[in-house]
């Protein structure tokens, strides 16, 4: 299972580790030193003081600046900033990427799939100056875009199809939220609306039932977190749920570890405990849980609401059936006993046929449970919303002073104006993207940095989920501010930001090595070349299925409907989550504590907490998966079938490389492949294999799918 590592510690050498330790020690030293100095002056600095904390770069107003460097090299303003950084360090950029490499890169980055051979040919032949721009616009318009960029958000939303933690109950309806995210990204819903819908979608006005349902489903963001379900105390659970939400909101939108201020004032960030409970009041004035009948008892479960005009009724009918079931079963048992005694003629009352009819009627009701109505995980405000008391040392039963509901004071003095009888979520949803009086400038920086991280391979701030004092400083602060500012000015258009970055010359750099630059900037912080990147597990699988011509690109609903109410049941669990769907990987089941093997070994985001940067590991288990997994070998065999249409062996190799690398083989590679196929065919023939050549080709296809070249983007 992968880890939560947000910084790529696993890929850094021990020297970097030591450097980090040193830097950390240095930080501690500086903190103590500053404290000592201030003590000498008679004041103790409080790191959690929100007013003093406003000095930190990430909370400052966005600064608009321009950079002029080498007009002959720059294509966009982004390039000016990057070039300025390189010039300052006396570095130069490497050459531009080859067209094939660039096309493969941009296609995987934008839609998570390889370009088709036809797309490669078209692009190579297109001599118009805006050929690349046209490709980018097509990709941005593709419904596949949301399936990749929606998944980036789902990492942060800790999306899952089950609860995880102590009782791994299935989230049968979570997929509706997942698909809402994909749809919203495809429609380029402005990011501020995207945020508001997820924080307060159930509270927003609507014109149609469809619009109401869409907004409500977006609110599922608050509901899908992992929760301890069989704890003893509902008051404790309320605080725990709010804590999980605060932690997620803090990381996903603000890049801050707000959750640390639950038990005490934050030790490093300007977040006092009072601010934590100001937010907590909003979230404890909200509920995401309800009493429901499941697995034979009343339980406190995630809140479900029926969809459509008559949703409430159909949901109520459905729940009523399960609530009544124990009584009905008891009634049936009694009716059967009565029937038996009637038959023995020692009973009174109804006749035998009448009693039989009663038994049959009860049986019929019991045996025909209503179908699960369309419903979704949706939060709502509690009956009497109110402020929350600080909990001493974070213990739910040790109440301190009450604090008014509100926000992080480090962002502004503006308090929350919450109308009587409301939770304040609507106000919170707006505050998160309000640049003037809210956290908008921080949210914009965090969001722009994430887009950069996904497209370039590393964030301008490498600690993408930590913009606080313990996070790293941006490598190009002016560029980050510019991107964040443009994001806001564009009306929070994510597609516009993506477009801007991929059309820069910086994005189009090759990944080639340069000894001199490497010696000065081995981490490539200044971006003198493109980062060579490994595909994520979704793209690895999708690209294999594309090569096998087996990927179904249809919009997919639930892939967990066949599962029982416990996603990972105790004991013999034959009914386990499946991965054999031909759909894109984004639609595969995300069962907490039971991820698909592919996800598990290739560093998928752990769905228990918001993840802005997945860990990057290289492990033997990945090799074992590629060498031995049935899915990989099935894809390879399907590729062999596809190749069967061609007769010439060299041409087959061409196709194979085209499908997997979007590039033709070098001569020596082709020769090596052909040698391998010849030798393997002979070997299999000696073994008496009925189809030696066919098998040899399938093994060659399998080999190509296992190469580093297939798994990496140049």
């Amino acid at each position, binding site marked *: 299972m992968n880890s939560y590592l947000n910084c790529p510690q696993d890929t850094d050498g021990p020297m970097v580790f030591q450097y980090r330790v040193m830097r950390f020690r240095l930080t501690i030293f500086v903190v103590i030193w500053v404290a000592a100095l201030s003590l000498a002056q008679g004041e103790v600095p409080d790191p959690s003081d929100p007013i003093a904390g406003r000095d930190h770069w990430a909370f400052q107003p966005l600064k608009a600046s321009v950079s002029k460097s080498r007009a002959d090299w720059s294509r966009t303003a982004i390039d000016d900033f990057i070039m300025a950084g390189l010039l300052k360090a006396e570095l130069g950029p490497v050459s531009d990427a080859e067209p094939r490499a660039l096309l493969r890169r941009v296609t995987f980055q934008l839609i998570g799939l390889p370009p088709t051979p036809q797309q490669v040919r078209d692009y190579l032949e297109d001599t118009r100056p805006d050929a690349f721009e046209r490709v980018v616009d097509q990709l941005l318009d593709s419904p596949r875009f949301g399936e990749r960029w929606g998944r980036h958000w789902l990492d942060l939303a800790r999306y899952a199809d089950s609860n995880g933690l102590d009782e791994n109950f299935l989230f049968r309806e979570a997929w509706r939220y997942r698909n809402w995210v994909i749809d919203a990204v495809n429609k380029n819903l402005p990011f501020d609306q995207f945020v508001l819908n997820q924080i307060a979608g159930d509270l927003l006005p609507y014109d149609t039932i469809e619009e109401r349902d869409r907004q409500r489903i977006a609110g599922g963001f608050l509901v899908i977190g992992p929760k301890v379900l069989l704890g003893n105390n509902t008051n404790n659970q309320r605080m725990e749920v709010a804590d999980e939400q605060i932690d997620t909101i803090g990381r996903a939108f603000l890049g801050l570890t707000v959750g640390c201020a639950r038990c005490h004032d934050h030790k490093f960030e300007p977040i006092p405990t009072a601010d934590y409970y100001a937010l907590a009041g909003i979230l404890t004035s909200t509920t995401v849980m309800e009493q429901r009948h499941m697995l034979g008892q009343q339980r406190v479960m995630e809140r479900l609401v029926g969809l459509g005009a008559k949703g409430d009724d159909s949901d109520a009918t459905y729940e009523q059936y399960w609530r009544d079931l124990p009584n009905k079963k008891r009634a049936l048992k009694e009716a059967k006993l009565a029937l038996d005694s009637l038959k023995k003629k020692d009973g009174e009352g109804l006749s035998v046929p009448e009693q039989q009819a009663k038994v049959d009627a009860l049986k019929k009701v019991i045996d025909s449970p209503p179908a699960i109505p369309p419903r979704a995980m949706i939060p709502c405000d509690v009956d009497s919303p109110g402020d929350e008391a600080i909990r001493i040392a974070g213990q739910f039963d040790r109440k301190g002073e009450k604090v008014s509901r509100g926000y992080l004071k480090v962002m502004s003095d503006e308090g929350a104006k919450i109308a009587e009888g409301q939770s304040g979520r609507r106000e919170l949803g707006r505050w998160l993207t309000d640049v003037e009086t809210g956290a908008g400038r921080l949210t914009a920086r965090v969001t722009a940095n994430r887009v950069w991280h996904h497209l370039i391979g590393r964030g301008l701030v490498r600690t993408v989920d930590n913009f606080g004092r313990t996070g790293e400083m941006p490598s190009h602060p002016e560029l980050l501010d510019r991107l964040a500012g443009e994001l806001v000015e564009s009306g929070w258009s994510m597609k516009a930001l993506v477009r801007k970055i991929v059309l820069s010359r910086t994005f189009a750099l090759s990944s080639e090595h340069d000894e001199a630059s490497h010696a000065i900037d081995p981490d490539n912080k200044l971006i003198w070349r493109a980062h060579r990147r490994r595909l994520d597990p979704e793209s690895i699988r999708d690209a294999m299925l594309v090569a096998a011509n087996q990927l179904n690109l249809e919009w997919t609903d639930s892939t967990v409907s066949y599962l029982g109410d416990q996603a990972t049941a105790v004991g013999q669990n034959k009914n386990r989550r499946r991965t054999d769907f031909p759909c894109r990987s984004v639609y595969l089941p995300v069962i907490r504590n039971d991820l698909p093997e592919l996800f598990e070994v290739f560093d998928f985001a752990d769905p228990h907490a918001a993840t802005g940067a997945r860990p990057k590991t290289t492990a033997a288990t990945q090799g074992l998966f590629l060498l031995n997994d049935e899915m990989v070998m099935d894809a390879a065999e399907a590729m062999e079938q596809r190749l069967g249409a061609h007769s010439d062996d060299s041409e087959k190799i061409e196709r194979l490389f085209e499908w997997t690398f979007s590039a033709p083989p070098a001569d020596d590679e082709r020769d090596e492949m052909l040698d391998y196929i010849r030798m393997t065919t002979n070997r299999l023939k000696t073994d008496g294999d009925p189809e030696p050549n066919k098998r040899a080709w399938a093994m060659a296809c*399998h080999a190509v799918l296992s190469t580093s070249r297939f798994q990496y983007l140049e």
Partner: protein
Amino acid sequence: MNCHHFNKTTTRRDMLRASACGFGHVILSALAGGSAQAAPNLKPHLAPRAKRIIFLFMWGGPSQVDTFDPKPQLNNHDGTPLSGKDIGRGDKSLGTILGSPFKFAPHGQSGVVMSELFPSLAKHADKVCVVRSMHTNGSAHGEALLRLHTGQANLVRPSVGAWVSYGLGSESDNLPAFLTISPPRGHGGVQNYGNAFLPARHQGMAIGSAEIPIAKAVIPNLSNARLDASLQRGQLDLIQSLNRKHLSDAKVDQGIEGLIASYELAYRMQSSVPQIMSVDDESVATRELYGIDAEPTDNFGRQCLLARKFAERGVRYIQVSTDYTWDHHNKVKQGSIDESAKVDRPIAGLLEDLEQRGLLDDTLVLWGGEFGRTPMVENGDGRNHHPQAFTVWMAGGGVKPGLTYGVTDDFGYRPVENPVHMHDLHATLLHALGLDHEQLTYRHAGRDFRLTDVYGNVIHDLLS
């Protein structure tokens, strides 16, 4: 001298050249599910008393008052109500008392008391240290399991074994530091042996799962169903040749380099791990010692024998789990008889085998469940979950042999002397391994985390 020398990246090749351990180091870290880079081998904070831990986990929660904590008062008051007054806690009725049907007796020179359910273990009474005053939080299995394994339930935290792996690294060149044999799939599942925010190499490698007999356990993708070894080697040679060409085009790339190394390792694992997992090469006497080939002990016997094999090869933390069979809400008498019969002989065999091989001195064996069971009856003949008081025992590496520690009240409802919370047990286990639970921290999301959070006291009285 160049003062910026720490900026130089250390390539894996440099590491190999520099490392006295050579390639073995790479194997260990990559095998452990992490990167193909050498792990910095941490030094213990204190003088270690044990080098490794074997935790025998009784999933479901054995009844302390039927096994290691005799309470004659239960039998004297069988069938009568237990009031809060009886245990000094309010005057609410707590339920109806259920006596224990089992005979208890002191064993060995030390007189450690066990019930008749553990006749084989009783012969090793002088080796064990019984803690009767355990308590924890979480009255449902899921929460209690997570607290037992990770110290926390509402947040995802690294497992004890992952912390041990992080703190001590692996002693083995070809196995991870943390292995879990037949782990539970439910009640937190993989989270119970997860690395959480620690680097991925500290995750426990799972062998099988609780509901599958260990003889049938498979590690996913450890063998190829369609290719024999020589065909696969030929295929791998092609893959690696293409990879090396990619690397030479790239000139310098740690990622591709690591990937090439990880393939070789993966290939070797395919033969080495099944070899270790086979108990066929063990002598008849050894197999008998563990109750292998006999029922009902075969399965747990194999698990315990595997644990010894892994201990011998330097794995730091080995967990062995029963199936979810100790949850006796009904028929606690028959259930306890059946379940102890499955584990008694294998556990005694393990202690004896470890001792014979000189491993018991530095291997701490821990036995226990996620919580205990009520002194009160449930469903006429069963007992309910009881986190307020339960018993665990330890043996070997660094623990005081023949000691009985802590006292519960007359009914076994709650500890009245020397209570030991789960956090205290965790602190004590780390201490035995030479790790200070307050110093073993990992920085994540802006703060330093530790296994015991802000809790935990080392119970020095338990250690020799």
